[in-house]
């Protein structure tokens, strides 16, 4: 299994239109991200395969881990390093049947209970959040905050990757909880210089 990254940049073309998925991946890798997650829910399979193939090649060159959101089939076809599965995606244990134990499967959790479920279901890491107020996704729930994150980190054995509203200003606090890493969208793709933003976050880890 490829190493699970500590600074994961999620490609997003819904909250901004300036950069493509490939642009974001390229800048993230340049800035020192060690994991890229391709998230393109609305895209057709053939285009996804092309884009995933392009990003995977860039990742291999720099030894960066590459995972795909939701689409287990596209990860199989492109031989990506793994998938990230949300609560409405294919269950983790089912995805494991297709991907085997050498691929990374990450799960999403918004509570300690959900984190336990993901762990029991075989997740290799858990994306936990949202920690702070975020504009990347519509979130009806309140942010979890540092204290709650700390508790989850203490009780869950698999690596916890914190997500949601993480910026260069608060990344230090987040990492002080003992969490494994962070995942970012807005603070990178909305930055005037995304590669520089990634470099800044990297220094905080």
């Amino acid at each position: 299994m490829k190493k699970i990254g500590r600074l994961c940049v999620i490609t997003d073309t819904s909250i901004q239109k300036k950069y493509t998925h490939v642009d974001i991946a390229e800048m993230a890798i340049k800035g020192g991200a060690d994991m890229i997650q391709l998230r393109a829910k609305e895209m057709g399979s053939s285009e996804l395969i092309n884009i995933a193939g392009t990003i995977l090649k860039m990742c291999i060159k720099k030894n960066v881990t590459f995972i795909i959101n939701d689409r287990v089939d596209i990860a199989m076809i492109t031989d990506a390093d793994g998938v990230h599965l949300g609560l409405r995606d294919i269950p983790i244990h089912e995805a494991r049947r297709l991907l085997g134990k050498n691929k990374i499967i990450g799960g999403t959790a918004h509570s300690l209970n959900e984190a336990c479920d993901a762990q029991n279901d075989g997740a290799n890491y858990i994306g936990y959040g949202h920690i702070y107020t975020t504009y990347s996704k519509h979130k009806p729930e309140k942010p979890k905050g540092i204290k709650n994150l700390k508790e989850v980190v203490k009780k869950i054995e698999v690596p916890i990757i914190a997500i949601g509203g993480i910026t260069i200003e608060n990344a230090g606090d987040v990492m002080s909880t003992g969490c494994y890493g962070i995942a970012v969208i807005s603070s990178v793709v909305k930055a005037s210089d995304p590669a520089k933003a990634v470099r800044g976050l990297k220094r905080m880890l």
Partner: protein
Amino acid sequence: MKSKIDFRLIFITNSKLNPDLYRVVKKACGAGVKAVQIREKELSAKELLKLAKRLRILAKKTNTELFINDRYDIALLSNADGLHLPENGILPSHINRNKRIIMGRSVHSLMAAREAEKNGFDYILFGPVFRTPAKIKFGSPQGLSKLEKVCNSVNIPVFAVGGINPQRAKKCVESGAHGIAVIRELMLSPNISKTLRDFKEAIGSL
């Protein structure tokens, strides 16, 4: 690889037309449908997998072939017999065909039909042949003469789709189509057994 297409009618689901999908599919299978394609674009992958597994058990009982639209992962996990791809979907070359899975593709032109055959698809769905509310936004229907042209140009089975009722099904088969695909006519049918009998009478077999 399984490539023998011995069914002539593909029932494509759309739960927006009738939310009681399980009951509709059960009735259709019981009334002799040989192929069902689950096409539920609104469902999350989790819900789709759940539905596919339920319908898999159902279809097995009547030896009905089960197809999943677009998602290869869901097709594998639900043990579906086939995968039906939209024009922007995956290709046979992308996957390991030893896994005995039938692969079909939707096409909307003669060129795309030829390409699908070249790419190794087992059958194609050509349409919309007639006017149908679901495809009005894409402009005029293709018509029977285009269908005939496509049927004469490829050596894989062609299924006609779009506004198909029993009378039109007969015309499609007379134009050279191997079979037809039906959504609305079955999803909205007040009497599925009767509708299927009418189709069977029109095209010879299901």
